[in-house]
């Protein structure tokens, strides 16, 4: 039973395919910019990936659809549907009938093929700039287990996204989260992990103990979380090799709000101290503990900068919850939030340029972003409860959870891009909260 989660995810490093020589027109590269302005989604076509033989027919169709869904789901691309296609792609290596794709205004064309043999699958694709009548980048091939066909599709979509936006992709990634059920007064909570699009959800804990704030490592192999399994809230860790274990050597006291350092070797967390709470950093396994804050205020929700040198956190030392930044080795903290309201749950973009946060103002909760010096504050969402942002691997999209009010209400996970556009719900089976997004998987 315990191996239910283990999937052989050996994905080969992509291989470049031999290309037919085409005359490349000297023209601006096909590109959609992710900017503040109004976006007109780029129309693209993805005719069904060609199966190499009957065994691949079903997988080829499913992979094609996931590639399409990934791109359309960004809000940056619009699919020209199959019903509008003039040309049919029946062979991966056949010449492209550019005029037919141009006629239906597909600016980008994705062609592909899928082969299956036994439990191994292989996908190859090419991306075409239709109006330039030229390939956009190299054709690539990905190999993996058939069971991980979704990851193969995400790898293709990440390549297409990167070439068309100039940004790295984010589709081949995993999200840890809390699955909640039962009455609001006594929720049963489990740590789950799923693909970024909600597929392949698996529960990592059984619900017998209250669990909170899962935080996934960048490589998705470990999850830090807070658990009441020992009676009081304690920071614990789940990893591929075995059972949950405590990570903080000092067994006394209540610890919570853990996060990995970027290299995964350390953990920063909050510990109740008297009537306040302080931040501590220690090695996974407990050694090398450093106390970052002292005093009687509440210091919590810490997060590392992507270079691991600084920590952003929330503190009420000034009277209300505000955001502060300090060195991960200790020292003075500088306040970076200055607007009206309370600021909480800060997380540093993997690009290092921005910090996302929860803001409570005027009785509403908002997800917002600001530059790391606190300037440029922008609110992206607002509702009764919008909370707990987590960054996509490319720092251009956020997930968070939104909770509807009242006894029958509950949390759901949403995503939004950093311009505030493309708010979408991430489909989960029931109530879900506290998303934590991994890095791009390799």
């Amino acid at each position, binding site marked *: 039973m315990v191996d239910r989660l283990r999937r052989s995810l050996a994905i080969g490093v992509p291989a470049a395919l031999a290309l037919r020589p085409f005359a490349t027109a000297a023209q601006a590269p096909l590109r959609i910019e992710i900017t503040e302005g109004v976006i007109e989604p780029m129309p693209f076509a993805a005719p069904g990936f060609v199966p190499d033989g009957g065994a691949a027919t079903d997988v080829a169709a499913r992979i094609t659809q996931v590639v399409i869904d990934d791109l359309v789901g960004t809000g940056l691309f619009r699919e020209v549907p199959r019903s509008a296609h003039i040309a049919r792609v029946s062979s991966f290596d056949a010449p492209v009938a550019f005029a037919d794709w141009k006629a239906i205004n597909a600016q980008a064309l994705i062609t592909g093929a899928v082969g299956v043999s036994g439990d191994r699958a292989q996908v190859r694709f090419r991306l075409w700039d239709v109006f330039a009548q030229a390939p956009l980048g190299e054709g690539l091939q990905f190999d993996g287990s058939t069971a991980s066909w979704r990851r193969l599709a995400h790898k293709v979509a990440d390549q297409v996204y990167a070439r068309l936006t100039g940004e790295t992709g984010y589709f081949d990634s995993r999200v840890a989260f809390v699955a909640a059920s039962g009455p609001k007064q006594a929720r049963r909570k489990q740590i789950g992990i799923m693909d970024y699009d909600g597929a392949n959800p698996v529960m990592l804990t059984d619900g017998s103990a209250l669990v909170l704030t899962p935080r996934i490592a960048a490589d998705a192999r470990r999850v830090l979380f807070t658990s009441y399994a020992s009676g009081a809230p304690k920071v614990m860790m789940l990893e591929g090799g075995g059972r949950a274990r405590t990570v903080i050597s000092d067994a006394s006291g209540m610890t919570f709000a853990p996060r990995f350092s970027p290299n995964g070797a350390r953990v920063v967390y909050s510990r109740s101290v008297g009537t306040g*709470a302080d931040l501590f950093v220690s090695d996974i396994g407990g050694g090398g503990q450093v106390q970052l804050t002292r005093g009687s205020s509440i210091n919590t929700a810490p997060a590392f900068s992507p270079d691991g040198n600084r920590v952003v956190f929330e503190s009420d030392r000034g009277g209300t919850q505000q955001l502060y930044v300090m060195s991960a080795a200790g020292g003075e903290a500088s306040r970076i939030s200055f607007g009206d309201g309370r600021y909480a749950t800060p997380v540093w973009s993997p690009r290092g340029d921005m910090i996302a946060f929860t803001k409570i103002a005027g009785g509403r909760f908002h997800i917002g972003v600001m530059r790391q010096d606190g300037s440029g504050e922008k609110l992206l969402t607002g509702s009764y409860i919008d909370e707990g942002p987590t960054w996509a691997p490319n720092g251009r999209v956020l997930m968070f959870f939104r909770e509807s009010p*009242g006894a029958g209400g509950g949390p759901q996970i949403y995503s939004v891009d950093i311009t505030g556009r493309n708010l979408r719900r991430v489909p989960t089976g029931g109530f879900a909260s506290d998303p934590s997004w991994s890095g791009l998987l390799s």
Partner: protein
Amino acid sequence: MMRATVTLKTGALILVALVAAGCSRGSDVTIPTSPDAGYSGAGGLAGLDGVGTAGLGGGTLPGTSISDRVLFAVDQSTLSAEAIGVLNAQVGWLTQNPGSPVLIEGHADERGTGEYNMALGSSRASAVRNHMVSQGIPDGRISIITYGRERPVATCPEESCFAQNRRAVTVVTGGPGA
């Protein structure tokens, strides 16, 4: 045509079942082994598999009419004069019934973020313990725990419910009538 030979593996997390192990902590106090074990119906909280009483009025210490809880202002853990009155009555009973260990649960309402509410719950429980100790209850008799906003007694999205959730509850564990 280039073909790489490196194969990259990606690990996956293995399903584990957390074992809820009861353990003693420091003094003779037994920490509840599950999030609901400490409640025993006090305050009418629903159990994992059942529905409790409405419990809007809150509970009492065993066999008494002394309230088992105090309430707090938004984002605060300071004790009001009314709270101190209730706690002093609790201290009186605890002094006369010295055998039972005491657990103070701190809670918060849902109009704040999760981590802050965890700390706030702990802060409230700590404030109650500090007062009890100042009134003569031995420090080792009292343990504290926070539940943040995880265990509300009232779920309506109004201040009348939020106020009830901003509480510290005194749970007498292992004593008569508990």
